[in-house]
């Protein structure tokens, strides 16, 4: 892999950064088209050698069809705002409002400039305690890292909060990940417990694998709660990372496939998982344009007893990454 253009030969500095994505996405479900312009800014501010403050927000306008045309509504929300203290090589203490480290999707694939598909998996709400965000503390870090394997962990406790920007449930849980570099294989397990009202347990497992250099990735995850369970797996081929010279037109394209199923145990909770057993297959084709822009497109067919439906999605995403302050 060649990453020409990254960094440079000037000394690295710890200047605060502003990053994020600007996107315009469309979703056509059963013939009804929705248009969503959105921006997800991310700010990271290092303080000294051990502290880091980071935050992400989401601002979007939603244009939805009505019988007489379109109506629009807007949302502005702080996704998370956390402070990190790197206490030792194996321990980082996180405080504030943070993304719950349950499974993989919430922490790793929700940024609009990262996800291959515009929408999350159907089973994603399982284990996310309603909001996907915790308000409290978290410990995480690398337990062991060698050329053959690495092991990492994360554990959290969250208090309940009804604040509009820091909405969370009282919960606790954790995640452990084993990674084997030789095989490019990642295995992980997550556990979460809702500590209020119905006191529910959630478990999840994930398996990610990628070929050594070909850019072929398979990512899969399964999770189970007390009212529903499900899984998804996604495969993509991303052949643009090699060489270092100009990327050919064909090698900018990234074909995708995702399959997912959700199953209801009961309908006692409105947890965001479809109310009927649902199967869905997504075919996508992303195009990685120059200057950190991406075009996302996908077609999905969803099957359930509520009715089968076609879903078409398109979008263009621009990622920005720049210093937020002058350097030394």
């Amino acid at each position: 892999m060649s990453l020409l253009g990254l960094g440079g030969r000037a000394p690295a500095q710890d200047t605060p950064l502003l990053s994020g994505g600007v996107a315009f996405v469309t979703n056509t479900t059963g013939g009804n088209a929705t248009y969503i312009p959105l921006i997800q800014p991310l700010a990271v501010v290092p303080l000294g050698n051990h502290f880091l403050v980071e935050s992400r927000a989401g601002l979007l306008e939603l244009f939805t069809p009505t019988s007489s045309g379109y109506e629009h509504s807007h949302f502005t929300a702080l996704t998370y705002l956390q402070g990190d203290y790197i206490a030792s090589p194996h321990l980082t203490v996180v405080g504030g409002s943070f993304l719950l480290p349950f499974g993989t999707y919430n922490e790793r694939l929700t940024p609009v400039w990262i996800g291959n598909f515009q929408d999350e998996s159907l089973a994603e709400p399982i284990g996310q305690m309603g909001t996907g965000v915790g308000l409290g503390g978290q410990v995480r870090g690398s337990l062991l890292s060698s050329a053959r394997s690495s092991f990492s962990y994360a554990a959290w406790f969250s208090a309940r909060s009804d604040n509009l920007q820091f909405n969370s449930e009282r919960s606790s849980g954790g995640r452990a990940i084993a990674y084997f570099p030789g095989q490019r294989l990642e295995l992980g397990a997550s556990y979460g417990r809702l500590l209020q009202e119905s006191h529910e347990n959630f478990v999840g497992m994930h398996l990610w694998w990628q070929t050594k250099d070909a850019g072929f990735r398979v990512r899969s995850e399964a999770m189970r709660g007390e009212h529903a369970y499900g899984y998804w797996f996604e495969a993509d081929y991303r052949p643009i990372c090699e060489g270092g010279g100009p990327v050919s037109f064909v090698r900018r394209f990234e074909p995708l496939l995702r399959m997912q199923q959700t199953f209801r145990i009961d309908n006692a909770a409105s947890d965001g998982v479809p109310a009927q057993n649902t199967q869905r297959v997504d075919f996508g084709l992303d195009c990685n344009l120059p200057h950190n822009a991406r075009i996302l497109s996908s077609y999905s067919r969803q099957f359930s007893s509520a009715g089968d439906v076609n879903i078409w999605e398109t979008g263009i995403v621009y990622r920005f990454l720049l210093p937020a302050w002058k350097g030394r």
Partner: protein
Amino acid sequence: MMNPRLIIFFAVLGATLATGAFLSAAQNASQGTIQASNNHNKPSRTTHADSSQEGDRVFAEHCARCHNAPEGFSPRIAGTITRHMRVRANLSPEEERAILRFFNP
């Protein structure tokens, strides 16, 4: 009798994994040829090259698992990015240093 949709699911999953295995094997074969050729032309490597290769490896293993590499950024934020990724990706201090050297050799 197995649900036909389940059969299709396992068929697609099998085909996906087979495609990955094929691509991996093809890539390894081609890389072996390139490495043999490079070793013939360049029998020794410098410490700087080793350091850069280590960062390349760490980036491919820990960062590219989730996202594509950005096309470029200011060296003023290289340290901030690596510290952010240390927390987010649970990197060890050695891996953080390797990526920082990779960004700013």
